[in-house]
């Protein structure tokens, strides 16, 4: 097992190098550079365009260097935790990420708990009571969940809050609390709002999980070992939990790996609509103004999270399913 993990980790190294290239490629695809969008922005706001300052900036950030040199400049800092500069804020990328990673992880973990705690029991219920009213209800709810894009759900929830309850649910706290030290009042404010992104991002995921869990349960409930267990006189509730659900949940475990990268990309669009202080909206801003090192780093972290997540899934799966062996 240990050697398997080691081997998998070794394979990840060339993958990560490849990923850093792809990430860099994605962010350098748009024509022009940060300087162009910077100048365009200045012009739009009626600012004076100083060509000399632009040139100096471009020089400082090495934007006129050949692309492979820019790439090299970026990746050579990785081992020491240096991911380059955020042009628009003139500070290291790491600073911006550190600032936002806390809320990003908090929202993701809450979303994960929210979806799993609800969807597994619902999936089991729907399968056991197949074709019952409850099953139809949850199935329909599941359809709605996957069919409403989460940024539209975000708009609907915020609209409802504003129009019918007169509360503004955007952001994680009222502007007055921003940058203030953490007090009970601030925590209360955050708690009052954090459910919105959790529900918005969680709903689609939950619908999917319920569907997988239900299908897997139905599949397992048809297996002969279920009838065998029943024929022994095992209590029905035990047949369902100890036998069927125990195996039905395995495929869900392999989706844990997919949830990890969702930390960043899952709530991106909803995050933009909701104005969350998380990494997704930052990526959007960075892409728009071609703040390439920031965007590249977020994409890079995202892909690395996918790799780690997949590995994590495989390890978890091996732990819960004795049939899976590594050699």
């Amino acid at each position, binding site marked *: 097992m240990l050697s398997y993990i080691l081997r998998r980790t070794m394979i990840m190294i060339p993958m990560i190098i490849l990923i850093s290239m792809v990430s860099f490629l994605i962010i350098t695809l748009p024509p022009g550079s940060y300087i162009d969008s910077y100048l365009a922005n200045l012009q739009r706001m009626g600012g004076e365009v100083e060509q000399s300052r632009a040139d100096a900036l471009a020089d400082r950030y090495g934007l006129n260097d050949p692309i492979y040199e820019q790439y090299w400049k970026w990746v050579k800092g990785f081992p020491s935790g240096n991911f380059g500069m955020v042009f628009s804020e003139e500070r290291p990328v790491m600073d911006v990420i550190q600032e936002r990673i806390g809320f990003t992880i908090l929202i993701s973990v809450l979303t994960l708990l929210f979806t799993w705690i609800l969807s597994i029991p619902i999936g089991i219920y729907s399968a056991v009571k*197949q*074709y019952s009213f409850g099953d139809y209800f949850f199935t329909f709810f599941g359809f709605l969940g996957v069919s409403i894009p989460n940024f539209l759900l975000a708009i609907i929830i915020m609209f409802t809050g504003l129009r019918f309850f007169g509360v503004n649910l955007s952001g994680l706290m009222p502007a007055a609390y921003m940058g203030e030290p953490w007090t009970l009042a601030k925590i209360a404010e955050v708690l009052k709002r954090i459910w919105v992104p959790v529900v918005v991002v969680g709903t689609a995921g939950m619908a999917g999980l319920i569907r997988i869990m239900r299908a897997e349960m139905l599949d397992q409930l*048809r*297996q*002969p*070992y279920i*009838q*065998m*267990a*029943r*024929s*022994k*006189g*095992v*209590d*029905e509730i035990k047949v369902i939990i100890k*036998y069927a659900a*125990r*195996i039905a949940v395995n495929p869900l475990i392999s989706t844990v790996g997919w949830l990890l990268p969702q930390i960043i990309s899952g709530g991106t669009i909803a995050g933009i609509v909701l104005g969350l202080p998380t990494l997704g909206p930052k990526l959007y801003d960075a892409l728009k103004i071609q703040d390439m090192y920031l965007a590249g780093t977020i994409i890079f972290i995202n892909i690395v999270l996918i790799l780690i997540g997949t590995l994590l899934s495989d390890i978890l799966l091996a732990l*819960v*399913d*004795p*049939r899976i062996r590594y050699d």
Partner: protein
Amino acid sequence: MKNNDILLEVDNLRTYFDTRRGLAKAVDGVSFDLYKGETLGIVGESGCGKSITSLSILNLVPQPKGKIHGGEIKLHREDEVVDIAKLKRTGKKMKDIRRKDSAMIFQDPMSSLSPVYTVGSQIMEGIMLSHDVDKVEAREMAIEMLRKVGISPAEQRINDYPYQLSGGMNQRAMIAVALASNPNLLIADEPTTALDVTVEAQILELMAELQQEYQMSIMFISHDLDVIGEISDRVVVMYTGKVVEVAEVEELFYNPSHPYTQGLLQSIPKIGRKKELKPISGSVPQIYNLPDACHFAPRCPHRMDICTKKEPPTFDLGGGHQAKCWLYEEGGENNEG
């Protein structure tokens, strides 16, 4: 081996499935008796309702589509007679019967044991449900059980997962799980179909031995007449959810009465027999909206007018031999012995 005490009486059992394509009468008016200590073979092609009959007896018909619609399944227990057809599927009594009186083994040994628990823990579970013992004692009994079914070294194999055993070993393990409760009734649903011929012979031998030891009745379900002939005392032949013939095993093989049984017997090869193999023409009809007539009529070489018009009753041919065929309308006349 067989005595005249009845263990199980199945009377006019009807188990239907409410599918989206209509009502499927998987078991439609099945009646037979099972005596203590005997092996009753149930034979028929796939889809004839033999498996559903066996699941009905344990009240394990797949939900929510399947349901026992009528009939009686009377189980003679130590101090009472229970009609299983009237019991609640997950009720206390039903569970008690499953724990102490009956056991079942299935066709596919690989998928009939949970892949995530060891063989030992699955045997122990059954033991602890039927006997009042603690974990340590249950483990001892489980090892003993594994020995009995010929899995060795039992002390080590008890910690194996099903995937670590071969198909034949798994089938032995499953028998161990089933017999752990020391049942009076063992239902074996095609227990050897998935196995090699040599392994099949071993398993059949094992079952015969264990039957002697435990004095239990076996309901042995198979599509394979050879296997049925080898292990059964009496045989029930089923077709489209109905019993078409019942007889002692030798009577059935030497003197088959229903054209379907005759067809089945003619379609199996025998060494030394020069006669050409004759398959039954046509195929088994789907069990939706079947007409109120003899369902074998379209394939029957002896078809008469009445066969497509009216369902034949069961005629008693004497000596416990019964056939559901219009050929025997005027008393027990036999054809081609």
